[in-house]
């Protein structure tokens, strides 16, 4: 196996790979306010990279610096090996889909989509062909003669997407591309995006609020907070091995317990809960001193719920009382009240149809929770 094959789906692991977009120590200040705080990031050809984070954390600002609408206060950006600070937006090999769509109000859908091709002097017949193709892809063929103000929010969003895609840029920057679409169209467009990305080898940088979307779409996710990257990694890494409480909390739901390290070796860590009477046993080692304060996090779906007390085992278990049950169809969420008065979530897949509304456990039932040593994560920040 050559190294190329080995890293084909994960170029960021290949030490020899050359990044397509390289962000080096980029900071953006608006007056005294630091919107993006000295970030470093490499994005590789053909990646579908997601920027995920709460509102106002600097996602759009970072994207605008890539497109050339904002100049970094310091640091530099390389796209395809070229330093971008002196390249105006209209000469950059990137196209952007704006969060507010920025459709040209005086042009109909067709002309909006054709705008970029016209600027490049593409022959008329080819423009017509490509526009028609693109409009049918985003299901807007019947609306080609409408002006933007005659379209619904979702339709406008699709025009914006079509307009950004039509030039087949090397890098496509998408700011919340699917937020206004209904579920069916969103899933279909997600699929289309992945298709286009595979077919054309376009590098995507997608901004989103929606963690589920980030999980399905991306090769890698960068979780942003207050202008900085909290963590960069594949969806699995981010979900299974978050390296801070912020990331763990932001992606999916998680139960977090405070504790102190009681024992730590190269292949396991023991932690005793500070507020709950739990002995945690985690099956990987970390370099932490005994007695240090840490947080142990366990995802709701990784906990087992039973009415029988577990046999013998002492670590990784706790007793509680069912406070609430949420039936979601595929799974049920149990809210369990612990002796410390804290309430934690446990999800149970509904493998068998609950007969006559019969659940594993009922309100006020005393239940036991336990989990595997491989399921918990130790967080130090």
């Amino acid at each position, binding site marked *: 196996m050559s190294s190329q094959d080995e890293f084909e789906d994960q170029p960021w692991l290949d030490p020899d790979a050359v990044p397509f977009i390289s962000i080096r120590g980029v900071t953006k200040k608006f007056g005294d306010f630091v919107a993006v705080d000295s970030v470093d990031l490499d994005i590789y050809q053909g990646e579908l990279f997601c920027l995920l984070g709460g509102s106002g954390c600097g996602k759009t600002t970072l994207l605008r610096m890539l497109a*050339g609408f904002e100049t970094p206060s310091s640091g530099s950006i390389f796209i395809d090996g070229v330093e971008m600070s002196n390249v*105006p937006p209209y000469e950059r090999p*990137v196209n*952007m889909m*704006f969060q507010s769509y*920025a459709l040209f109000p005086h042009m*109909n859908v067709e002309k909006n989509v054709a*705008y970029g091709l016209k*600027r490049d002097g593409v022959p008329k017949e080819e423009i017509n062909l490509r526009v028609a193709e693109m409009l049918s892809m985003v299901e807007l063929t019947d609306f080609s003669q409408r002006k933007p103000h005659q379209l619904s929010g979702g339709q406008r969003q699709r025009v914006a997407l079509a307009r950004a895609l039509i030039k087949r840029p090397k890098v496509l920057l998408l700011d919340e591309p699917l937020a206004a679409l209904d579920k069916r169209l969103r899933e279909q467009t997600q699929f289309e995006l992945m298709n286009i990305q595979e077919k054309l080898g376009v590098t995507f940088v997608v901004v989103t609020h929606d963690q589920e979307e980030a999980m399905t779409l991306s090769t890698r996710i960068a979780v942003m907070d207050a202008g900085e990257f909290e963590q960069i990694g594949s969806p699995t890494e981010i979900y299974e091995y978050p390296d801070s409480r912020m990331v763990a909390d932001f992606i999916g739901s998680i139960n977090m317990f405070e504790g102190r390290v009681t024992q730590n070796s190269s292949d396991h860590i023991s932690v005793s809960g500070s507020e709950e009477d739990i002995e945690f046993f985690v099956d990987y080692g970390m370099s932490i001193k005994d007695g240090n304060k840490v947080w142990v996090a366990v995802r709701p779906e990784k906990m087992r719920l039973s009415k029988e007390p577990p046999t013998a085992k002492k670590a990784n278990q706790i007793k509680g009382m069912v406070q609430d049950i949420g039936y979601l169809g595929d799974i049920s969420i149990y809210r369990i009240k612990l002796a410390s008065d804290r309430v934690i979530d446990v999800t149970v897949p509904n493998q068998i149809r609950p007969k006559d509304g019969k659940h594993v456990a009922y309100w006020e039932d005393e239940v036991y929770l336990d989990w595997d040593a491989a399921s918990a994560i130790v967080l130090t920040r």
Partner: protein
Amino acid sequence: MKQITTLDRMKAPVMARNWASELMGFLQTQWKAVVVFVPFFWLLVFFLAPFFIILKISLAESLIASPPFSPLFEWAEDGVMSIRIIFDNYSYLWEDELYLNTYLSSLKISTISTVICLLLGYPMAYAIVRSPPTTKNILLMMVILPFWTSFLLRVYAWMGLLADQGLVNDFLIWAGFIETPVRLMYSHFAVYVGIVYTYVPFMILPLYANMEKLDMELHEAAADLGSKPTTTFFTITLPLTWPGIVAGSLLVFIPATGEFVIPDLLGGGNVLMIGRVLFNEFHANHDWPVASAVAIALLILLVVPMMLYQRVQAKETESD
């Protein structure tokens, strides 16, 4: 009798209250009609009525009498009303070259002035819109500031500036560009300076109002799609600011065409403009019917192209 009066007295306040509440009810339900009707009524009285009076005079014959024109309607002795309409005044305008030349000269001057105002005002409006909020307010104030002094005074000020011994000539001599004063006053140049100076705010303000609504992100979107700044200007900025350009140009062109004070004071006898002809017909020649015909012809000259333009516009928006 007495009984009826008391009855009336008792009724009166009730009726008044009914009347008031009915009016309130009417205003509440028909407020849109009221809002439209009040200015409409105003225009009817103060624009349309004088217009018809002028139109009537323009169709009359000049007399040495008071008023100095023949009546349009006359009651003959047998009780039959006779109407006398005379188109002589209009054919006279057509036949005498002076009028035709003056109209053309007026249109030429106002067209050129409008273009100059647009070329000056457009970048100014754009700069004002793009400047930070505090500067923006100061710049806007400066555009409006001249209106705080009388228009006539400002034209007199220009007379002082442009005179042979005026500031402009003094400066040019002092700077060594010229040796003897150049004639600036009583020329087309002086008239253009006066008109452009006076009317440029009327160009800037509607353009500013229009550009203020312009979404700057559209320029970014165009640039992102590979459009150079000049192309962006012609494909995005210009089409979107077109309504502002039209509004500003009409606001400059229409009053500039009929301008009287500026050509009279700055142009003297050397610049033919219809406003001065009109003034002369009324006052010097005392020929009200011809003066009225001049005014009506000017109105038609200005209104007809505007209506045509509106037609085209309406059709365009319909076809979109």
